[in-house]
C-alpha cells in the first residue's frame, strides 16, 4: 500500500513537472542587434540537429522575432544560430560560433550582436575554436 502510494506520488510529481513545463512554455526569440544589417532565414539548430525557425524571416536592426515554442526534448538544449546577413543588397550565410541555450520554462532572447562570433562554413578555415558564451 505504501509502495503504491509512493509510486503514485512519483507519477504525480512527474506529471506536475511536465504540466508546469508545458504551461510555463519554453520559448526562444531571436533579436537582431546589428546596426545597418538585416538577418534573414534565421534558425536555431540544436546540438542534436533539430532546427527551430521563427515565423519572421526578415529581422531588421533592433527587431525581435515572434517567440518559437520549444518542445520537451530541447527545452534545455544548446545550439547555434544560422542566418543570412543582408547589407546593401549583398548577403552571406553565417553560422555563429557562440552557443545559445534555451532555458526550461522561460522565454529566452537569443541576441545577435556585431561582436557575435560567426563564420561562413565554406569560407572559414579548419580551425573552429572553442565554443563561446552567447551575447558577449
Amino acid at each position, binding site marked *: 500500500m505504501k509502495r503504491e502510494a509512493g509510486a503514485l506520488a512519483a507519477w504525480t510529481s512527474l506529471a506536475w513537472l511536465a504540466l508546469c513545463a508545458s504551461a510555463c512554455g519554453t520559448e526562444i526569440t531571436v533579436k537582431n542587434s*546589428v546596426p*545597418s*544589417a538585416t538577418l534573414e532565414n534565421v534558425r536555431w*539548430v540544436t546540438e542534436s*540537429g*533539430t*532546427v527551430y525557425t521563427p515565423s519572421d524571416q526578415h529581422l531588421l536592426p533592433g527587431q525581435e522575432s515572434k517567440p518559437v515554442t520549444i518542445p520537451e526534448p530541447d527545452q534545455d538544449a544548446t545550439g547555434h544560430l*544560422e542566418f543570412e*546577413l*543582408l*547589407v*546593401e*543588397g*549583398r*548577403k*552571406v*550565410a*553565417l*553560422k555563429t*560560433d557562440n552557443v545559445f541555450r534555451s532555458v526550461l520554462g522561460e522565454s529566452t532572447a537569443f541576441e*545577435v*550582436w*556585431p*561582436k*557575435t*562570433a*560567426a*563564420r*561562413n*562554413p*565554406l*569560407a*572559414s*578555415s*579548419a580551425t573552429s*575554436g572553442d565554443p563561446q558564451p552567447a551575447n558577449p
Partner: protein
Amino acid sequence: MRCGAWFAALAVAAGMIGCGSEDSTTANDVVQSVDGRSAVDTLIGVFVVKGKSSDPLVDASYVDYRQISRVKLQVDGEPWGTFSFDGGELAAAGSQDGWVLHSTRSEALLVATLGTEGERTDDPLDSVEEWVALLHKHLAPGGHVALVEDVVLKKTDGTFVTAQPRLLVPFTIAQGDRSALLGDVVVEIDPAGGAR
C-alpha cells in the same frame, strides 16, 4: 516525428555542405548579390616593375616577375588589401646585385580580390561586424582610383626591399561589372639605388 526526421535530414544536409569546404574559397566568394546590383570586388591588372636608370642611353630593364613578392593597394582612399604573387623560385645565376633583369617586359598577373588578405594571414572573418564591413565594401559603377602603396620585391639573396611608388591608377566600372580592369600597372624602381 515525421517533422523531426525532416529537420534531422536538413541538418545532415547542412553538415555535408560544411564538410565540403575548400581552402581556396575566400570570404568574398561566399557573398551573393540579391538584387543584381553591381558589386565589384576584384581588380585585375598586369603588373610590371621597370628598372629606372639615371643614364638615358641605357636601355630600360625590367625586373623578373618572380621577384615581385606582394603589393599593397588602396582604392578611393580606403585600404583594399595586400596581395601576394607566387612566381616560384628564381636562380641567382646571372643576377646583378640581387636583381634578374630583362630587356623585355616581365609581367605578373595581379588579381586583387577583397577578403583574400585576411585568409592569407590565417585571420579569417570571424565576427558579424567583420562580415558587415565586407558586405559594405564594394565598388559601385563609375570612376575610381587605385593607389599602389607598397611593392615588396625579393632579391635573389632572399632579402626583401619595399618600394613605395604611390602610383595612382584610374579605372572605371560599368553597370553589371563583377571585376575591374586596371590595365598595365608599371612601377619604376632604381635597382642600383635600391627601392624607393
